[in-house]
């Protein structure tokens, strides 16, 4: 007789705690579904939605803004993809910076800051990532979400054990089913992730995009980092860019592997007429050698274990106590994009795109990326 009341009390307490935890977590995870504002700058002439190129995306978590920066002067068109992997924040922030700061003087620039919009609404289990990080701007700290490498499983689930890439038949681990950068060229009637890839491919085809650049980050121990990976048709543009920026920083140019499918630099080059490139900077907050994981690591890029790993040559980029800050990583992306635009007359059909008065690498590093972002409202 004694045990029954004890069990009821224990069960009641545990149930109450569980209810409290669920309510608390609903608030925490619910907040991740609210997109932080992006403030279109003077260069933005139109804000469209990705679903215009794939109507079945409308109203889904995959639909996202496409910012159009039309200079009014005929020239080349360039598409910049940020947030393909929302756990690679320099790619996202660089795209936001273009939307808020860039004023092209020739050609048209298209920017999708949150290419995998769904991926911004969650974080990856076991990675202990922060849900947000702050960037200091002139008017205070602006908060941005740190997301997941893949589409939120709430929007696309379950994964099969094996992911079969639709157009090539290549098999990958099932977790890649929700990876946008393994889904190209995409399928109109496919999964949410494949639909997003399809919409981007259609955007490129229908708007005759000359150059497409996908902004990424990678672990500092990864072999393809501080690099431009280019489809064979875009290799000359990658080399011209590499030489153009070499006074400021070192970056390598690698050819896209022909047997690795689903990636932007392979499939967009094969399935469309665009010059497809992808850029990687070194981000310690996604590396496997990192120590304590928090928003400070995302922003400062300083990690004592990476300093140790560098001392025995286990990282592939220069790394010391100063770390690799998000401003430095964004500066690389933005400078390379500006260089690509500058080199556009020398490649493809010789059309030019000019991004206007963009800050130099050294300026972004010195001022911080927040200097070029809109103040928080």
């Amino acid at each position: 007789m004694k045990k029954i009341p004890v069990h009821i009390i224990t069960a009641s307490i545990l149930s109450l705690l569980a209810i409290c935890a669920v309510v608390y977590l609903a608030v925490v995870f619910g907040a991740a579904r609210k997109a932080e504002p992006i403030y279109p700058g003077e260069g933005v002439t139109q804000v469209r939605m990705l679903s215009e190129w794939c109507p079945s995306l409308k109203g889904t978590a995959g639909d996202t803004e496409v910012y159009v920066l039309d200079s009014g002067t005929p020239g080349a068109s360039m598409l910049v993809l940020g947030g393909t992997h929302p756990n690679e924040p320099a790619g996202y922030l660089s795209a936001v910076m273009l939307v808020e700061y860039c004023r092209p003087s020739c050609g048209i620039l298209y920017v999708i800051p949150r290419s995998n919009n769904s991926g911004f609404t969650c974080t990856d289990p076991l990675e202990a990532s922060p849900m947000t990080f702050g960037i200091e701007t002139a008017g205070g700290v602006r908060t941005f979400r740190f997301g997941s490498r893949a589409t939120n499983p709430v929007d696309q689930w379950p994964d099969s054990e094996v992911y079969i890439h639709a157009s090539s038949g290549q098999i990958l681990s099932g977790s890649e089913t929700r990876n946008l950068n393994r889904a190209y060229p995409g399928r109109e009637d496919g999964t949410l992730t494949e639909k997003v890839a399809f919409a981007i491919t259609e955007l490129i085809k229908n708007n005759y995009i000359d150059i497409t650049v996908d902004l990424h980050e990678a672990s500092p121990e990864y072999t393809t980092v501080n690099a431009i990976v280019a489809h064979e048709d875009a290799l000359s543009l990658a080399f011209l860019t590499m030489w153009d920026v070499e006074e400021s920083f070192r970056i390598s140019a690698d050819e896209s592997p022909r047997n690795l499918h689903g990636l932007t630099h392979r499939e967009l080059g094969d399935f469309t007429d665009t010059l497809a490139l992808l850029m990687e900077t070194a981000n310690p907050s996604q590396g496997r050698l990192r120590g304590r994981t928090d928003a400070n690591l995302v922003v400062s890029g300083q990690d004592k274990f990476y300093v140790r790993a560098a001392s025995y040559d286990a990282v592939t980029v220069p790394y010391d106590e100063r770390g690799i800050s998000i401003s430095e990583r964004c500066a690389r992306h933005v400078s390379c994009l500006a260089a690509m635009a500058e080199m556009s007359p020398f490649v493809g059909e010789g059309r030019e795109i000019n991004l206007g008065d963009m800050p130099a690498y050294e300026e972004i590093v010195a001022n911080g990326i927040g200097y070029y972002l809109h103040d928080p409202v």
Partner: protein
Amino acid sequence: MDIELICLISMLAAFLLANLLLKLPVSISMMVAAVAGALVGGQGIPVRHLFEGAFAYLDTIMTISCAMIFMTFMQESGALEALKTAIVRRFHKVPVLMLFLLTATVMFPGMITGSSTAAVLSTGALVAPVLLLMGIPKEKAGAMISMAAIMGMAAPPVNIPAMLICAGVDIPYTGFAGILFLLTVPCALICTLVLGLKYCRNLSLEKMSDGLDTGIGREYGFRLYVPAIVLVILLVVSRLVPSFPQLGTCLIFLICAFIGIFTGRRFNVWKALLSSMDDTVPILGKLMGVGMFIQVMTLVGARGWIVTGCLGLGLWFVLVSSFVVLPAFGAVNSYGAASVIGIPLLLAIQRGMSVRSVTVAAILAFLCCLGDIMPPTALAGNHAARLVGLKYRKVFAHSLLPFAICLAGAAAVLFLL
């Protein structure tokens, strides 16, 4: 001393305290350890991280649950009993061949799904009664099934740890079939012989016939095997025919379990469902606890401390640590071992040795798979022990020699190729 190391020690101490002294279940002890690590690391009680970690293995949890339902239904319908009788009657004159066929049978679902759990709980459940009937002791039968399931998980065409490592370093999952075949098939056969050859001598049908129930097979005939046959067909077709709807292993197990309700002896479905969940919940709890544990290890930097420590030891130590740390990390999760430690180890070995990436990735993936016998999680081992009705520690003791043989096989392939 690094704070990250202090956190790790606190977590291990809290786990041991909760599990051994307070006699709490492994799953709860893991959660206690995670909370302790977070408190020492200055993170408070990280409710969000505990929750997120607990859901990390949701897909695995669902596969295990569905496979367990299928296995229970097969048992209740009498299919296991009938199959046992059929196999023994047909192959009792060639017991070594029978052992090899049984090993291949256990491996098959692992090869198709990349999951040792699926292998143990599907064909492993069919094979276990036959092994016991041959006179193989329960602990050795359990070890045979778990090792065969792990070899199946590592064998081509689907090796998920290899795919995870490939994804981490952007190499395509191609060219793995030969090397994985070379690693797994000889190891599986040798392990089977080491554990079972002794019991193949003087095997006679008369001795075994006491344990055979021929009635059930005669009564229901071929239809008893329909769920198992449909299972194999759906698994194979969904892998080999891309245009076939991707049902997923969970749904395939459930469809076949449903078919099993009508193909044999009648049984109380509700009671069978409850019984299958009763057996499964402790293992599911372990996976959730393990998820919390790893998430907090990452949060406080203990994971980085371990990985950086392994890489800082020089090439030979990196190689040695691959053979120790990867299977040991399987105590937590073999897929986790591949993505957390396998990738940096591959990069470190590539820097120090001129060896093909595919060869190294295949060997590392094979070592990760071996982790599925490591307690406390021991997905293959725990399920195999349940099949033969033992506590896992007894089965684990008999798995150590085959485990060592597999390590030696992996080392031989690494240095000879």
